[in-house]
Structures are given as structure tokens and as C-alpha cells.
């Protein structure tokens, strides 16, 4: 009996205390790497390839125009509170089934911040609109001397 007890005591091997530092370091590195390679989350947006438009064709449908200022949003020139935006736009898009009819032209003033732009464009897509950007074309004019 005494002999058996002695044998089982010998089998108990404790990990060396010096290794705990290494184990802790490896665990920290492992979790840091796991956290940093987490895929980002985002919002997919399809913006049609840019093209220069000189004049609107006669048969083209009249699209809804959204104007963005630094803090406000206008639908076809009418200022709309942000809380009512989706409802108003949805009612204007109702009955339009063809994708070309659901195009919403977004014109932003130069001082529109990105967070405001994202807020409005996500709401346009939620209302069923297709975002299209309209930008001011920059032209260089050389004056005669």
C-alpha cells in the first residue's frame, strides 16, 4: 500500500514555473493577431461608371434629385427633416418598377461631411432608390492676355 502511494506521487509532474511567462506571452500574441485579422464590416454601394452628360435626352425619365448641404437634405428642392426622409422618398418612388426610374441623383455641396453623406445614401437605398452621383465638372479656362 505504501509502495503504491509513493509511485503515484512520482507521476505528478508540475509544469516548470519558468514557462508561465512564455505561455502568457504566446496567449497575448495569439489573441492580438486574432483581433487584428477580424474582417471589416461595411456597406456595399454600386455607383455607375462616370460619364459626361451634356444634355438630357427627351425620352429619359425625370429622376428624383437629392441635394445635400452641410447639415440639411432637400428632395427636389424641398427641405425634409431627416426623420421623415425615408417615408417621403418611398412615397415618391412608389409605382416606379423599372431600375432607371428608381435612380436618385445625389448632388452634394463641397462642405458636406462624409458621415452626413453616408447617412443619407444608406437611407436612399433603404427607400429603394439607386444612388447616382452628380458632380460639378471642373474646367480650366485660359484667358487671352
Amino acid at each position: 500500500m505504501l509502495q503504491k502511494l509513493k509511485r503515484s506521487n512520482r507521476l505528478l509532474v508540475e509544469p516548470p514555473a519558468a514557462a508561465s511567462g512564455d505561455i502568457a506571452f504566446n496567449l497575448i500574441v495569439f489573441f492580438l493577431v486574432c483581433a487584428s485579422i477580424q474582417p471589416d464590416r461595411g456597406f456595399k454601394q454600386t455607383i455607375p461608371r462616370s460619364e459626361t452628360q451634356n444634355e438630357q435626352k427627351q425620352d429619359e425619365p425625370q429622376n428624383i434629385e437629392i441635394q445635400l448641404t452641410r447639415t440639411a437634405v432637400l428632395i427636389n428642392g424641398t427641405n425634409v427633416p431627416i426623420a421623415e426622409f425615408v417615408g417621403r422618398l418611398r412615397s415618391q418612388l412608389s409605382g416606379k418598377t423599372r431600375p432607371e426610374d428608381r435612380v436618385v441623383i445625389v448632388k452634394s455641396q463641397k462642405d458636406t461631411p462624409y458621415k452626413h453623406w453616408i447617412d443619407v445614401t444608406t437611407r436612399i437605398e433603404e427607400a429603394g432608390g439607386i444612388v447616382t452621383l452628380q458632380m460639378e465638372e471642373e474646367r480650366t479656362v485660359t484667358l487671352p492676355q
Partner: protein
Amino acid sequence: MRCDVPNTAMGDIAFNLLIFFVILARAQDDSHLHWNPAQAEKLESSGNSVVSVLVDSENKLYLNGSEIGISQLADRIEELLGNMPAGKRIVLLKVHQDILAQRFEPILEAISEAGGDLVHILEENKTSTPK
């Protein structure tokens, strides 16, 4: 006197080397740049991408972590995307929330011109305004 590396350390060494190469493999790392994402709801996973465009809080433009000018952006993105099929031409766009339209709209145009599938990288908004 000969001193051998203990066999028990081999596992640790291999593990550290593995992690070192995993970090190195992330070539387009832009984690050192400072930007605050805008917020939105119902975000989805962006998927894997070889192109990441970032505008930091100092209004500087970066492509895969290296500073670049707006005039070169479309060509460089097109080069990086090569002949990738549609649906895999993902371009991640990370814009600091206070950057103005005069800065970010030409970037959107450049991505569109290069035929990239645009994904805005945003932060999930849990306390939103009513829609």
C-alpha cells in the same frame, strides 16, 4: 561544453515564427493610420479585398497604406484589380467621418472608373435616429 536548445522550446519557437509570418503577409496593412469611421446600420461583412483606400483625419489619401495622389488613384486601382471577375473586384473605402465631399467624391469617381465594387467601411450604429 556544448549547450543544446531544449526540445520543449521548439513548439514555442514554431508558433512565434508562424505568427510573425502571418503578420508580415498582411501587406496592405493600414492599421497605423488614424481615422474615425462614420456610423450606419445593417452592415455586412466586407469580404476579402486586395485594395484598400483610406482618407485619414488629416485629409491624406492612402492606397494599401501608402500615400498617393488622387490623379494616380484610378490607374493604380485598375492595376491592382487586374482581370479579377466582377463580384471579386472589392475595393474597401475607409473615410474619416468629417472629411468633406470635395475630397471624397473624386475618390468614389476614381473607384467607379477603375471598375471596383465599392464597400464603405463603417461602424455599426446601435442607437439610431428613427427612419
